[in-house]
């Protein structure tokens, strides 16, 4: 065990490593995943039950390389490709666009609606040039009327189209809460199953860099009670593209949460068509001592803290839950059964957040396996201040994560 961590601690994060060849042969095949299968992970996602035979050495090293900072700004020579499958490198927002574009080519019923998605190319460039390619009706620039154009997307979905509604900022979707709650989530049920609503609602949310309170909202906690919808949060270019495609192909209404600060993450992703399962969690770093559950941007704070923890001798298992509703209790449960300690790190508010629900779910299902109470680190119940220092203190920082793990593992 010591050898592994020694290697990790010493290596510079961006050094090229021999890990290019680490991928065992069985994972060189196409990373396409089928829905029902939890047994064929891609070479990026490793399930906790499948990881035992892995080359842990290079896997953990690879994980460290993937996340240099909380927000990756430099090119990362991702080791996730193998020699027979070079893949291509791109930024997260490009991955989203790629996924969207591929789905629009594949199915002419897929259309995009939102503010400034067409000619402007999207406020975060996720829909750049799509209007030129597909036309103004398929990439529709809407007036500033969130409630109504979300409702319009729902009506279009009911009558045969597959719209992708973009909220310029997730916070704006508060204005569409009526339509999302009453119609998006409920119409399949109240119509007795007659109408499906295969809509995808996506947009950037989360705390950015001094964007102010109203542009820094986390709506996952507000939406999580709505029956009939699924929520997923992407965190890497790989899962961003995969989740986007899966969400578009899904017959259920899906809300895809992106994060403002993650749009420039770079990663090498496969060339082939692939999707990420909407209901599954992602094993980021297998470990033995403590399970850290996280999603979206906090994944990077956790991985940064993991570096410190590893130096201190801890072995955290990091899982990116990805599916905020429903929770993947299988992956989470297996991890809990292994480590017996859980730390949840999220950017959501403390009260009624995703962490609160997750804590309840884990306690209900795996109470016997816990050696310590579940710890949940969330943002303060504070409107995000503008001042940089104050803003820093509202979200969970890596130092706090390290402290929490030390406390848990005492």
């Amino acid at each position: 065990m010591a050898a592994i961590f020694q290697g990790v601690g010493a290596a510079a994060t961006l050094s090229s490593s021999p890990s290019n060849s680490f991928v065992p042969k069985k994972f060189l095949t196409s990373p396409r995943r089928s829905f029902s299968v939890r047994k064929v992970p891609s070479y990026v996602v490793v399930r906790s039950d499948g990881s035992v035979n892995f080359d842990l050495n290079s896997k953990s090293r690879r994980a460290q390389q993937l996340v240099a900072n909380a927000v990756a700004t430099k090119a990362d020579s991702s080791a996730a490709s193998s020699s027979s499958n070079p893949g291509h490198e791109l930024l997260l927002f490009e991955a989203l666009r790629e996924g969207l574009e591929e789905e629009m080519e594949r199915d002419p019923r897929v259309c995009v609606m939102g503010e400034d998605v067409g000619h402007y190319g999207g406020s975060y460039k996720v829909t750049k040039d799509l209007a030129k390619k597909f036309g103004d009706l398929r990439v529709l620039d809407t007036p500033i009327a969130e409630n109504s154009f979300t409702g319009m997307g729902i009506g279009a979905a009911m009558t045969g189209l597959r719209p992708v509604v973009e909220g310029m900022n997730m916070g704006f979707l508060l204005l569409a809460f009526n339509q999302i709650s009453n119609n998006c989530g409920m119409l399949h049920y109240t119509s007795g199953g007659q109408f499906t609503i295969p809509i995808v609602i996506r947009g950037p949310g989360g705390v950015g860099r001094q964007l102010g309170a109203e542009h820094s909202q986390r709506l996952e906690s507000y939406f999580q009670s709505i029956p009939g919808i699924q929520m997923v949060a992407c965190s890497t270019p790989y899962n961003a593209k995969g989740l986007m495609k899966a969400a578009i192909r899904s017959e259920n209404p899906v809300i895809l949460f992106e994060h403002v600060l993650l749009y420039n993450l770079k990663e090498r992703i496969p060339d082939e068509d692939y999707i990420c399962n909407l209901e599954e969690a992602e094993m980021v770093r297998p470990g033995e001592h403590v399970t850290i559950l996280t999603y979206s941007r906090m994944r990077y704070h956790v991985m940064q803290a993991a570096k410190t923890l590893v130096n201190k001798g801890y072995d955290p298992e990091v899982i990116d839950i990805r599916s905020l509703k429903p929770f993947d209790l299988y992956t989470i449960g297996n991890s809990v059964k292994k480590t017996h300690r859980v730390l949840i790190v999220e950017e959501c508010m403390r009260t009624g957040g995703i962490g609160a629900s997750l804590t309840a779910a884990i306690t209900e299902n795996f109470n016997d396996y816990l050696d310590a109470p579940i710890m949940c680190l969330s943002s303060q119940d504070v409107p995000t201040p503008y001042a940089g220092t104050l803003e820093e203190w509202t979200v969970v920082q890596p130092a706090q994560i390290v402290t929490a793990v030390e406390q848990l593992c005492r």
Partner: protein
Amino acid sequence: MGRMGFSPKHACLTDEKDPNRQKITNLTSCLLVSCQLNLHCEVRPPFSSKFPLPFFPSLPIGTKATKMSTAFSAANFSTQSFPLNHTSTTSHDSPLVFAKPTSQFLRSTRKLRLSSSSKLNLNRRSGTVVAVSDVVKQKKSKSTPTLLITKEEGLELYEDMVLGRAFEDMCAQMYYRGKMFGFVHLYNGQEAVSTGFIKLLKQQDSVVSTYRDHVHALSKGVPARAVMSELFGKTTGCCRGQGGSMHMFSREHNLLGGFAFIGEGIPVATGAAFTSKYKREVLKEADCDHVTLAFFGDGTCNNGQFFECLNMAALWKLPIVFVVENNLWAIGMSHLRSTSDPQIYKKGPAFGMPGIHVDGMDVLKVREVAKEAIGRARRGEGPTLVECETYRFRGHSLADPDELRDPAEKAHYAARDPITALKKYLTENNLASDAELKAIDKKIDEVVEDAVEFADESPVPPRSQLLENVFADPKGFGIGPDGRYRCEDPKFTEGTAHV
């Protein structure tokens, strides 16, 4: 009249005595307003001191009397400012400028307009004259009787309205007998709007309604049995008992709901119209001319979703008709007390679409207006806002004691019962005999009784139905601790699974 492009009088009514011409008056006025996209009609209806807004005095339907045209007659027009052309300086009028087709989308819209009916030429100013005189010429050349409907149509309309009325009366009975619960909103008195509009639709056209949706469902073709079972909460209901009175849906008949919150359905209707346009322009289903009707009330016209959708529908020329069922009351809130400008039809031109006001107690007038509005939408000319002045004879819902409304007002509208009026019209014009109408009454009674029997005998939903329709793809319930999808759990299909 000098400022107008033409005068209705001039267009068709030089001879006041000719009944054919006279009858056209109302149609003309409606067409006048409808064909001019930028029209702002400043007609002020007669305000009586007694009632809030009796736009129309009680007169027999289809009447040719001059009084009926008071609201829209030339005399009234002349006293009002009537900006028809682009260069008007009133604040209501924004000149309709054609944006340069810088994109495919706008270009395609233009193509649609060019290929639309040649009768309406693109010069907006003179469009109306052509349409009206064409209509007049058509009517003249057909040399048909001077009636608005044929016998078959008349009987169809009568049957539909009687079905609506009888059904709603039966609902009230069943409610008080404890067969249905919750909020039930009845449509008595407003049948002319539902019948007048929906009977002109094809099956593929969509209808979006509010919580007052039983009769819209029936007019659209949903069987009375299915609606009654839904109200009883039985599994044979159109929504398997899961929707209830306020959520009637039918995929087969393209009834897109049934919405409990007011204004909620309007964006959905806009979406359905968007799909129709998308199918034609992107998916290249060239013959797709499906139209959507959105029904809602006067209270909704103060809601943001209404205005947002008027804007979007006009902006993209969506094939939709916004039908306002102005029954003057939103539960206990009078329309006058809640609206700064109570004339809802005026809000259409503000967004670049025609706004028409029609007597909603007269099914024939509604039908004529509906034909034009639906025709406009089908031809790709865009949306229309139609305000139907109507009235509900009962309270807002069966739980509403209905104490606020003036009995004199109720009596005034009761005298204009649309069913009685149509009956009179049919018999007076020898389109149907009393016996035929009575036969229809009897038939409808049987249909409604049969519906109640069917609903009574239908089973209640079993527990296994509880979780079935939450997700179209039940994998949405996620993966359970045992590694399997929750929907694979046998308890899931029994409805007892803990999800």
